[in-house]
């Protein structure tokens, strides 16, 4: 396999016992997988968001507190809601035998209780994760006009900006805080395309997580489209997974939606539609 299987090991709920989660995380790494660990006290929503953002093929949930019947199915339900049910979900921890059929019914593929071996878990994951190269081959085109902007993650706009305004002689034209994304954005036009410098405003901002993992740099490319909703549904029909099923508000009063980077060969792709006339004319 060209790419290692990516696995998210997650601790849903308030349970702090993560010996098993940590041991499994390391064990799967030693089995050649790429493993991300969420840390403690994650809600099902956070786990699913991380799984999609990190584009994992498998989520391993661990709980020893007895809350698994409420927390595990919430993860699969949420995945389904976001059309990401092809992510394999497995569970582990202190889980009575009689609960296992209930969890399987809810879409947990397998449950590994204490005494399970890491080799067995790895074999199960290899056997059951989705094959990544089976996207539909029939092309369904997504009409794109031009590059609207390029998103660049920075730790500090104040520190990054002089390169663009000084060295490249560009001008920053617009600054705003996008509360939904917990980012501050500054737009620097280059011809008809903007550079969008993105700085996190909170530790749990997606941009903060991106910076933590990749460091500063190219974050996404946004294509201008006439109709975001149409572009998203066309992409979905073609078999591309979406981060946003429906358009939402982005910077500069635009309507935006993201396509999953795994299906676009590693580049986070945004569609955006300028909805306010004065904004559209500015650039």
């Amino acid at each position, binding site marked *: 396999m060209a790419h290692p299987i990516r696995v998210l090991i997650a601790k849903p*709920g*308030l349970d702090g*016992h993560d010996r098993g989660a940590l041991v499994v995380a390391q064990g799967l790494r030693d089995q050649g997988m790429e493993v991300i660990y969420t840390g403690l006290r994650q809600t099902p929503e956070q786990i699913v968001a991380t799984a999609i953002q990190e584009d994992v093929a498998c989520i391993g949930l661990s709980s020893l507190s007895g809350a698994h*019947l409420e927390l595990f199915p919430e993860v699969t339900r949420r995945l389904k809601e976001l059309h990401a049910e092809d992510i394999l979900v497995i569970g582990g921890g*202190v889980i009575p035998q*009689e609960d296992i059929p209930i969890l399987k019914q809810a879409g947990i593929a397998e449950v590994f209780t204490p*005494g399970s071996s890491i080799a067995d878990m790895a074999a199960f994951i290899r056997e059951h994760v989705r094959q990544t190269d089976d996207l539909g081959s029939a092309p369904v085109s997504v009409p794109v006009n031009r590059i609207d902007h390029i998103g660049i993650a920075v730790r500090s706009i104040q520190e990054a900006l002089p390169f663009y305004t000084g060295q490249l002689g560009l001008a920053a034209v617009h600054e705003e805080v996008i509360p939904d994304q917990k980012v501050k954005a500054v737009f620097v036009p280059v011809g008809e395309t903007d550079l969008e410098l993105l700085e996190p405003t909170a530790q749990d901002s997606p941009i903060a997580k991106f910076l933590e993992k990749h460091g500063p740099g190219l974050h996404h490319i946004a294509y201008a489209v006439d109709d975001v909703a149409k572009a998203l549904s066309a992409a979905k029909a073609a078999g591309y997974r979406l981060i946003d099923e429906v358009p939402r508000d982005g910077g500069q009063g635009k309507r935006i939606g993201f396509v999953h980077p795994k299906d676009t060969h590693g580049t986070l792709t945004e569609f955006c539609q300028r909805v306010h006339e004065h904004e559209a004319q500015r650039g």
Partner: protein
Amino acid sequence: MGFQDEYDAWQAAVEQTVQKRPERKPAFVNHSDIPVKRLYTPADGIDSEEAYLNKLGFPGQFPYTRGIQPTMYRGRYWTMRQYAGFGSAEETNARFRYLLAQGQTGLSTAFDLPTQIGYDADDPFAKGEVGKVGVSISSRLDMETLFRGIPLDKVSTSMTINAPASVLLAMYLVVAETQGVDWKQVSGTVQNDILKEYVARGTYIFPPKPSMRLITDIFDFCAREVPNWNTISISGYHIREAGSTAVQEVAFTLSNAIAYVQAAVDKGLKVDDFAPRLSFFFNAHNDFFEEIAKFRAARRMWAHIMKERFEAKNPRSLQLRFHTQTGGSTLTAQQPDNNVVRVTVQALAAILGGTQSLHTNSRDEALALPTETSARVALRTQQILAYESGVADTIDPLAGSYYVESLTDGIEERAWQYIRYIDELGGAVAAIEQGYMQQEIHKAAYDTQMAIERGDQVVVGVNKFTIDHEPQPELLRVDPKLGEIQAERLAKLRQERPAEACETALARLREAAEGTANLMPYIVDAVRAYATIGEICNVLRGVFGEYRSPIF
């Protein structure tokens, strides 16, 4: 022939035997990587009266290796203190009364995770967790129910509570008040050990610095107001459960203890004023002799630390008193009845190691919370050891065992190496912040897992002697509706309590938290005014912030 000649002759004979018939393994090493020799002789143990006095001493005397009381269990057995708690305060109250009626001599309270992390039962974060791993306590009303019909001047109660220990202690004291019991007569323990939460157990709320303040506030407050209260139980239990070796358990626990004592001294408290109320909590795993040696080594080390490092004078300050719990993580979901045997071996090690109180795990704990029947078998295990086996009839019966003394020295030596290294890192808090303890424990946990998968470490019923069809025992189930019931009760409480008094008490608490005053009296007042654990902890979250664990 002298000793050496006889020994050499034996060695030669053994070599011949081994050539013909090799031993089970090429090398024998225990879990702490201490080599186990084929045979121990007087040369390995206590070889002179002088060495005896230095290393062992007599029970009740420095360095307390043989025990902290002069007569140990000949005077009184250890306290049989079974950790219990689940569901609602009513259900746990019933389990408490059952255990007391069965001859248990102290109570030990398990709280659910929302309580442990300072959330009310109706908080969104509490979803799915209410009453699951312990009893749900949101306000003094729950606490009153929990101890209904149990006179607080007659029992001693241990509470496994850390980040919000001040709040639960305040609730307990307010319940004592309503029962008409003087605080001076109240006895028990709050675990109150936050450092091991960052290292191993994960139920922290605040960052280390304000957490240390809350802890030393309890030391100070109880020294004056609740003199029979054990203000902290410094825990190696969870460190071991997270995967550490026995040596790491001793080393990290004592390092954390050093940090607490130092923090209190830095705050201006006199060591002999609070040190007699410090207590410890250790694990007992399966390696029988290693465990016994571990307890003896820990006692000796603590006596030296307190005497030499902190210059404590009161003998009680030098005595390491400890509770023991058998190792939860050693229990298997497979063939659960085997766990009764494991627990027996571990409990015996704790008794031979001189524990002051003991919790024996129930056979079904790798599957769910214990049922009443399995909790009773666990308690009976202790009673059989105490009343039938005779092991409590003489003090420290394994002293002088060449092997046990050598192993005690070996554990002590290796634990000192860790403590010295942690000192170099800047102490326990710095070591934890740098992830040092976490990484060491994780390494040990991973090695154990791999040893089990390779079959080098045998777990009966799991990687050897397995059976095909596992009959499933009956399990305890917590009412999934409990969250809703608790939420309704809280809504009623919020409506009926004196709103102004409650708000004033919380406002005064906030002000005190922003300053440097001892917070205990303010928390007690808030509890008296029916403020909930979530409300009190939210005030403190607002001032102190919340801790987020870095991932190492």
